[in-house]
């Protein structure tokens, strides 16, 4: 099988996984809207929770995977690892955008503010910006090999940075109570909501995997296209 066929196959499989995940998402929402009780204090706004929390989890997963693959790249120097890492980063950025939009939509009715600088939000924001920087840096470098190496270095640095930012912001916050209506600390969820949430997390993990497969297949196809175009010339 040629590389292209493999990539196409992967894309098909990625499509299936994504489809499954979306079906799952629909299921989660039927469950959330029909079978899960409306939260007492937050009302219907809370329904966005089943997107927001899992999407946050999936984007963190995506960045973590990118960081680990970056580390792997520096040892293996394999182009495929680089392509997989950047695919994960891009999916992560897309998922973070979803997280950073659903968060405020929810936060406004619940906390009475669009944004609060708590540890989790802030470290995720910095992480998001860092990966935007990662993608911008890639865009600015033309040599494929240099691009892979440099972005891998940034990926590794980001991986190590996150715990530091988290601790920093956490300390900054906890030592001085924040002026928000409600603190975004994890509340204990009633069983049904928790089950719904866990299912949703599984669904979004699947969605991440599906996206990653699709994006990686696309990256490989682009790479193959470049190589073929190049062969025509030689």
């Amino acid at each position, binding site marked *: 099988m040629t590389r292209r066929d493999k990539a196409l196959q992967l894309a098909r499989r990625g499509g299936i996984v994504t489809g499954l995940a979306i079906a799952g998402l629909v299921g989660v929402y039927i469950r959330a809207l029909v079978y899960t009780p409306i939260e007492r204090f937050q009302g219907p706004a809370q329904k966005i929770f089943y997107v927001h929390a899992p999407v946050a989890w999936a984007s963190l997963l995506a960045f973590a995977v990118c960081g680990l693959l970056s580390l792997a790249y520096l040892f293996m120097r394999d182009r495929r690892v680089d392509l997989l890492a950047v695919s994960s980063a891009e999916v992560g950025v897309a998922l973070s955008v979803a997280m950073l939009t659903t968060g405020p939509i929810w936060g406004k009715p619940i906390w009475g503010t*669009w944004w609060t*600088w708590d540890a989790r939000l802030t470290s995720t924001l910095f992480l998001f910006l860092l990966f935007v920087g990662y993608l911008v840096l890639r865009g600015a470098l033309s040599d494929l090999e240099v691009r892979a190496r440099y972005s891998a270095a940034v990926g590794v640095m980001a991986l190590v940075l996150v715990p530091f930012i988290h601790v*920093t912001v956490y300390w900054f916050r906890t030592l*001085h109570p924040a002026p928000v209506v409600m603190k975004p600390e994890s509340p204990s969820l009633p069983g049904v909501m928790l089950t719904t949430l866990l299912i949703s997390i599984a669904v979004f993990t699947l969605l991440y995997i599906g996206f990653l497969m699709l994006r990686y297949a696309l990256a490989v196809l682009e790479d193959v296209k470049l190589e073929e175009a190049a062969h025509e010339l030689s």
Partner: protein
Amino acid sequence: MTWRGAVAIARKDLAIEWRTKTAFMSSLVFAVLVLAVLFFARDATAVSAFDMAPGVLWVTFTFAGMLGLNRAFLVERENRSLDGLRLSPATPTAIFLGKVAGNIVFVGVVELVSLPLFVLFYDVAIWRQVPLLIGVIAMATVAFVAVGTLLSAMVVRTRFSEVMLPVLLLPFLVPPIVSAVQLTWRILADRPLAEMTGWLSLLGSFDIVFFILSLLLFDAIITE
């Protein structure tokens, strides 16, 4: 003639930025980062975020704008293309207007995109006042860009443009930035317009005086 040249130059500058978008994306991310860093770079027990907000907004715009301004003439320095402009029939006025227009668009877009984020982050949302705020931003930006364009044309001749531009420019930014900060907090605190006229007229006259002055002096800078 002047218009043709100015339009050609502004168009070319924006085409260069549009081509890669790297600089634009970077300036935007930079603005967001500065907003965030300034939030944390304070003693939270003593200073509330809301009180700091007007200052933060203008410090952010200043630094993000300075980055953009620097680029506009670095592009001309790369291969000494400024010499090419000077040899062309484009008048100094055309070069000045073209550069100013390109810069205003660049800086303006960065400002307008980061404004909602500022509102979000510092929780100052008073949408009703937005038109007034945008007016103030526009006025301050014109002052900033006009003086900045003149000065960056001067420093680009040295090997130190990236450090000398802020040094020369910052003193000139004191009146517009202070006015803008004063106006911003009044706007955010929903004060009556009467309380703002003083600062507005200061800002406005600074705009007019320095735009014209920069335009006139640019001639002396660019022609040998």
